[in-house]
């Protein structure tokens, strides 16, 4: 988000992608070692690994969307409440009736599109700082949601719970969903014109504009992607909890944690550099640490203290090596 970004050239790009994967590997090995020495259970058991992926799914999907917002030099603080709105609206509309699932999907998608569009318009056309614009949007959603719902509303039908509990062959559906979102996100960034424009606009909005890119549209598009990813996370959580509650988004701190995951994954907060795969590594690091702390029997408060310090340390690892000016 800092306005000043020094070009770091090719040398920087060569190590930037690997370093997060080294961090991921190191985290995994350290966690394995610690759990083997001091913990209970077998860390490399299939159940533990699946547990890691399942923990990563909800945060991972919203973080993929957040990556788009951050890549264009913006960010989205409204995702946590959009997740709640989606989960509650979906389960409220479905009321346990399988025939109402399509209607629910249409409604929550429309909500996501609207929120993303408004966020994007506020940031581009009204030139409001994204922090304030999406914070304000989050407050608006929160107020509307809490005015209408105080507790679990409705329920999702059995058939919809497949999203969280089903499996195709040996592969759990959440894992497929996660992989699909990541694949789409990575492909869009790497192979489409929109993806290329996202990097161009994030690198230097004015230059992109002068090169003939309609940068406002790209920023709006990125915000729509961020909102739609939050909608998918909301649907997944509704399916997992079998109903939607207003507090599931803010309780998971999906707004700040998704930003942290994106940045830990090597995407620059100022935009223009990074990508979905790094974000996934960041999310997996968080999930591995979560599972490790659990198996080591570390309390949730200590976990929170360590998690904060780890976020700072992880970003410091490569922030220190780049010669960038930060705010």
């Amino acid at each position, binding site marked *: 988000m*800092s306005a000043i970004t020094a070009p770091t050239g090719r040398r920087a790009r060569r190590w930037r992608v690997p370093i997060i994967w080294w961090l991921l590997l190191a985290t995994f090995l350290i966690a394995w070692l610690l759990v083997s020495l001091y913990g209970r259970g077998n860390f490399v058991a299939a159940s533990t690994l699946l547990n890691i992926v399942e923990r990563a799914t909800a945060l991972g999907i919203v973080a993929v969307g957040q990556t788009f917002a951050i890549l264009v030099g913006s960010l989205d603080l409204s995702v946590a409440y959009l997740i709640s709105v989606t989960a509650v609206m979906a389960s409220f509309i479905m009321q346990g009736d399988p025939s109402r699932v399509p209607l629910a999907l249409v409604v929550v998608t429309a909500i996501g599109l609207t929120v993303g569009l408004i966020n994007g318009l506020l940031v581009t056309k009204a*030139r409001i700082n994204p922090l304030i614009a999406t*914070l304000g949007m989050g407050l*608006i959603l929160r107020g509307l949601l809490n005015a209408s719902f105080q507790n679990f509303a409705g329920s999702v039908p059995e058939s919809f719970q497949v999203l969280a509990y089903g499996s195709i062959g040996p592969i759990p559906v959440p894992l497929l969903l996660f992989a699909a979102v990541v694949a789409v996100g990575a492909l869009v960034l790497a192979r489409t014109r929109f993806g290329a424009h996202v990097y161009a606009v994030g690198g230097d909005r004015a230059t992109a504009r002068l090169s003939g890119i309609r940068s406002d549209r790209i920023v709006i598009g990125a915000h729509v992607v961020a909102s739609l990813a939050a909608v998918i996370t909301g649907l997944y959580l509704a399916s997992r909890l079998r109903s939607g509650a207003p507090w599931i988004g803010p309780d998971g701190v999906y707004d700040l944690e998704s930003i942290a995951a994106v940045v830990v994954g090597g995407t620059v907060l100022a935009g223009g550099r990074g990508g979905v795969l790094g974000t996934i590594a960041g999310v997996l690091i968080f999930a591995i640490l979560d599972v490790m702390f659990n198996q080591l029997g570390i309390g949730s408060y200590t976990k929170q203290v360590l998690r904060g310090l780890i976020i700072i340390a992880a970003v410091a690892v490569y*922030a*220190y090596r780049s010669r960038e000016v930060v*705010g």
Partner: protein
Amino acid sequence: MSDARAAPRVPAWRVALAVVGKTAPVFLVLLILIAWITYLNPRFIEPTFFLNFLRRSAPLMILAAGQLFVVVSGGFDLSQGSLVTLTVLAGALLAFGDPANTWWVILVLYGIGLLVGVFNGAVTSYLRVPSFITTLGMLLTLKGLALLITGGAPRGALPPNFRAFGRAFIEDVPLLGRLPWAVIVLVVLSALFIYLFHTTVLGKQALAIGDNQRAAALAGIHVARVRITAFVMSSLSAVTAGIMLGGFSGVSINVGDGLELEAISAVVLGGAALLGGRGNMPAALAGALTLQALFTLLNFLGLPSPIRVTVQGAIIIGAVGYAAWRAVRAGQERGA
């Protein structure tokens, strides 16, 4: 750097006056809100009630003042709210209701604040971690620490002389009636903040760094030192706000939740530019007062509390959007 014309020699009050004239919107909005509240409840403007309103606004105003130093230098301090929580919980735990403990506990709390500020500033300056991430990590860490030392539920109690800063009054003051301690502290600190920001070199250097860090460094400003000082101001103001909030709302584990975003909103309402280079202290203080007046108004209007949150969101967007629109228009008029 739009405040460059205010040279260090000019007395603080004249700078403040000039600044007020230049950034009228927030003061106008504040006046309108106060007039509206007074229309709904004429007693609001009576000294006793108004001083009480100021007392409730004091923590947010002090937080906003501290936050302004960080914001104009181009950063954010998201750890303020968690530091407020830690201040209240650790204060209650350390003092354990014994008035004899109050003074050393307050010293310890300010020591913690100093450490947090130096850490935030040093990590941002020397390790080049964006302050958004540094202070976000700090937010999680401090909240976790507060919960950890208390075991997740408030323990101990704040002694009466500790709580006095938030809840005590001086009775029978001529003209004013009951004068809250918090308001006296607020006035003294506001004057100090305005002095520090507008007449000492610290404020100028913070603005210069926020405007163009490289240029500031080349001009001989010790960027890291100024940055660290800015984060220390922010953290110390959070400890101060925590001491006050502990006084009048008592000990709870979520006393500070979301305050950092309210403080940033207040600063932005006061016309400061996020990402640095523009901002002034009286307007930031007025921004915090405006936010508090808005909460009060929505309360008087009898809106259900969730809707108040929605209106707050809309107002923040509207105010910043208006400022952005004005900036664009001003730029066009200058032919920029």
